[in-house]
């Protein structure tokens, strides 16, 4: 990689790594080791395609899309490592931040991986249905369906008043 481009890449990676990692932690429902692995893989892929990534209108969104696809590809290959989330109570108890975090992650872990990816893109990345569809290679209709299903499940798992646990 040419030096200037290598520097650009390094700067971009340093700036985005933290956010990608946090996204990955949500995608993996709190599996921080897998999250690190996914971010490394994502940064690796971005490195290979840097000349293209750097020309994208929004390299950060490109990176996020790459992460999400890396995550789904990983899940496709390794179904058996899906986290067990049997410990989740059916309704969430009022709790501190720490247990909100745990509860929310456990609830995410109970969603099918594609539904989880939709939730993370829609509500963490604040992407539109269309953008989410494009990132995941789904149709918009499929994103909406998954979203509705995931929200229903999360409501059931977290309770309608999830907001009570969120810091003001």
């Amino acid at each position, binding site marked *: *990689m*040419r030096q200037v*481009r*290598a520097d650009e890449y*390094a700067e971009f*990676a*340093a700036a985005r790594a*933290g956010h990608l*990692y*946090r996204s990955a932690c*949500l995608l993996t429902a709190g599996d*921080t080791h897998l999250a*690190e692995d996914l*971010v*490394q*893989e*994502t*940064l*690796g*892929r*971005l*490195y290979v*395609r840097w*000349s*293209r990534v*750097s*020309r*994208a*209108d*929004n390299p950060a*969104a490109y990176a996020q*899309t*790459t992460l999400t*696809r*890396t995550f*789904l*590809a990983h899940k496709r290959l390794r179904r058996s490592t899906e986290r067990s989330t049997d410990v989740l109570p059916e309704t969430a108890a009022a709790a501190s*931040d720490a247990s909100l*975090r745990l509860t*929310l992650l456990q609830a995410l872990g109970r969603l099918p991986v594609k539904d989880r990816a939709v*939730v*993370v893109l829609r*509500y963490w990345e604040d*992407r539109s249905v*269309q*953008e989410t*569809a*494009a990132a995941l*290679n*789904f*149709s*918009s*209709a*499929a994103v909406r369906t998954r979203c509705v299903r995931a*929200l229903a499940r999360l*409501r059931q798992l*977290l309770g309608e008043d*999830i*907001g009570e646990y*969120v810091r003001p």
Partner: protein
Amino acid sequence: MPHDQYNGPDLPSDPFETRLSSALHDTGGLFDTDRAALVAAGAARGRRLKLRRRAVVLGGAATVVAAVLGGALVLPGGGSGAGAGQSGSGQAGAVGARPKASPTPSPAPAGVTKQQMISTLEKLLPKGRLSEQQGRGTDEEPSYAPMASLVFDDGKGPAAVTVALGRVQPGSEEARQTVLCPDKVYIPHDDCRTTRLADGSVVMVFQGYEYPDRRVDTKHWLAELVTPTGQHVSVMEWNAAQEKDAPISRPEPPLDPAGLTRLVSAQEWRALVDDIPIDPNQQTGGPTRAPEQPGAPVRSTLQTLLPKGLNVVDRSSNEAGFGYLVVDDGKGASLVQVNVQTGMSKDAGALFGSGSETLPDGTRVAVHQGPGEKGGEGVVMWTVDTLRTDGRRVVISAFNSGTQHDAATRETPALTIAQMRAIALSPQWWK
């Protein structure tokens, strides 16, 4: 880019969604890690990936991440016209595999209309019933990648067929990857072949599935063509009337690999590609566009360094960075490939662990002998990896087969480790 699009209608309106979003932000924000380590590991992985990719540009075998194929697939978003446009745009932006034309169309190329796209597709398909024609011209927001889709029934059942056009930089990594078969590990498929046409164009024909997990067995076949001047034509078909959410209507999509190849390589498409307005951003990128490669052309250099008595039976193109030869000493074909890189000092630790040797001038040498990586039955891969103190690296690998993915044709590669070592350490690579 999708992120810049107006997304008002999608904003959460339900209080639960708003709360969920806040909760996610609070929760996500609590995670942190050693970012510097993450970045360093990511770059190291990138460098390895790059090397590995170069190493598999042979005989249609490939290591490609899912995004590559994903990037090649500009598809309508499930039927609706609006969805189609948005989905195509999002992919072009998000994955970038498809070059976009300019948002301020230059006057030169005429542009391509939706009707041209549809009628060209109709004309080029074999006899059959056509319905549900949709298309997009270069004049339509938000995407400038022209495409057409329709339902084609040759009498054996309705099938969705789409075509999309674009440009890639000739000779670029993007051009190469567009027609590189994906690794089955990443994208399961029944068959994938890359062939070079008489005019120098390369066609990949891929026969796989709409859903990689095969929850529904909708077959998804596609052909990607890249011409020597960078015209890119992509044709896809399914054995259902829609790509998703439609019942399987026939055992297989209507066009077989030969039919797909005929359709994708029709001259009509290339004329239309030439009418796509040119994106000034894609044209002015001079220095950043040309893939930089160090040193001498690899294939010809390798050829001059080979020991006597080896017959060259196949060869790669002759460029800097990577090349290969398939040689035969009379005992069977043996693939020999070389990667030449610069600026690799940072990876010395990862690449040259214990058991590696350091020469008096500081050059590191590592030898690996193991099974091939591409699943060819009984294939072994011998590698000599060398790294000079200035970061210049030459890696030579030899196989006991003409390709990595075919079964072994001989017991050992046609070169000895000593011969490979001498080749890798030759100063000729840097002439």
